[in-house]
């Protein structure tokens, strides 16, 4: 048997969508009437709220305003605070909490980038042996993880050290004892995440292919430029004897090659390219 609440709510949707009469709730029992009223009032209240939007972090909203330094920095970071901060970094990325029982992380994903941010209770994101073990476990547990960010939860700006799998793998050091790779510098969480996204998913300025295609290509100009560059480079080399003289003789005659390219590019051209190049070379010699 149909729930009377369902019928009443559907009748309200008819009322909203097609102007059908507003349904009467008098026939409903008190609890059912309360349920319908709750749903209908919720519909009114929710209308217009963007369910897909993420609000920027308060720090981002106050950034650049006279109140920029008003809020004390995060000193007791938790995964919720980290998630909120990360959500304000880039609207393209999705940010969720992975509630792993022992070490929950905040996962930032965009396309094939997946970075996990792990909170450690310290004032600096130092990679100690314990932290290194945790990071290795995270990389082992989820092979799709590209980076792990160590977030120092007691630091003023949630200082973060981003690590890749190479940073925690066993390596052979150089005789001078230097690290084979340089780690990313520790940065405040938002900056570290932004840097990560800029490196992994840079945003390129838009390029108008239609406009680029509509402007005619100056074949002669391009050929002259390329010929000039090659002749200048070749004539500057330490050739000797005839070869040197031949290359030097071509300087200032780039237009010969440009003219040749234009002739070859012309439709129906019957020019023998090898013959023409030999002729120019002989003349130069």
């Amino acid at each position, binding site marked *: 048997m149909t729930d009377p609440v369902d019928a009443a709510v*559907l009748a309200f*949707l008819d009322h909203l*969508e097609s102007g059908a009469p507003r349904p009467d709730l008098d026939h409903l029992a008190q609890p059912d009437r309360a349920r319908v009223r709750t749903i209908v009032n919720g*519909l009114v209240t*929710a209308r217009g*709220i963007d369910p897909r*939007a993420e609000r920027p972090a308060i720090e981002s*909203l106050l950034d650049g305003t006279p109140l920029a330094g*008003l809020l004390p920095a995060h000193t007791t970071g938790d995964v919720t605070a980290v998630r909120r901060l990360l959500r304000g970094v880039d609207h393209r990325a999705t940010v969720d909490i992975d509630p792993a029982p022992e070490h929950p992380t905040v996962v930032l994903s965009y396309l094939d980038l997946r970075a996990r941010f792990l909170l450690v209770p310290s004032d600096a994101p130092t990679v100690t042996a314990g932290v290194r073990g945790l990071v290795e476990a995270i990389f082992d547990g989820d092979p799709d993880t590209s980076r792990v960010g160590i977030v120092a939860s007691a630091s003023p700006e949630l200082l973060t050290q981003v690590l890749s799998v190479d940073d925690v793998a066993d390596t052979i050091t150089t005789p001078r004892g230097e690290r084979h790779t340089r780690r990313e510098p520790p940065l405040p969480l938002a900056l570290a995440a932004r840097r990560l996204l800029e490196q992994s998913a840079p945003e390129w300025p838009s390029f108008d292919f239609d406009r680029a295609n509509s402007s005619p290509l100056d074949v002669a100009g391009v050929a002259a430029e390329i010929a000039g560059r090659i002749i200048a480079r070749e004539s500057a080399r330490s050739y000797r004897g005839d070869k040197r003289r031949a290359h030097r003789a071509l300087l200032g005659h780039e237009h010969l090659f440009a003219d040749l390219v234009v002739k070859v590019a012309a439709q129906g051209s019957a020019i023998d390219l090898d013959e023409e190049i030999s002729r120019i070379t002989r003349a130069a010699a």
Partner: protein
Amino acid sequence: MRTQLVRTARLTHPLVADRARLEKITDNMSAQIQKVIYGRGRNPGSERALHGGESAEDVLQDALIALLEYDPGKLRTTWEALSVGIARKKAFAALRRATRGRRGRTDPGDPDEVTVIPLEAAPEMGDAADDRDPERAFERTQQQLVLLRLARETLSDRERTVFFGIHFDGTTRAALAEEVGVTPQAVGQMYVRVVKALYEAARTDPEFPTTAGQGWPA
């Protein structure tokens, strides 16, 4: 001078000391602003933007600064109620700026047209009196934000599409039926099933406020 102002505000403003409360109030203000700007007379398929380039986030920034600059000594209500008033006022001001000099010039259906429908002209549905009481408006909106969080956490993609479409966007069941590939009747049934399940789950959620008398009966 600025540093001094910031220091003074930090010392005296209760919301600065209570970060969790400020986060909740800011979430609520964001929702209030979206409701004013996009809630009525909006084509669900249209882009969420105001003419002139202003966005809901710009309005939220204005509202948040106004809230934090409010003198706590002059407060005669709760911060939550005050935040609702500030957010709505800023949002209506943004709408007025967006439509200044444009009303009467655009044709119906013009993509740049911004329509402001008075509250009284909206379809008769809920308790309008509650909407005018900022305390209740805050709590009602807070309830919807809890439902939204639960929906994000628990619903499948298809269920989310239907719930977000009907509940928040005002999309018709027929339009959603085309999108998800089922009949409009099935969309309606899915919405009712999902919304009841979400209220049932919210009943035990510690963040779901019920003092406005709009809880979900056991």
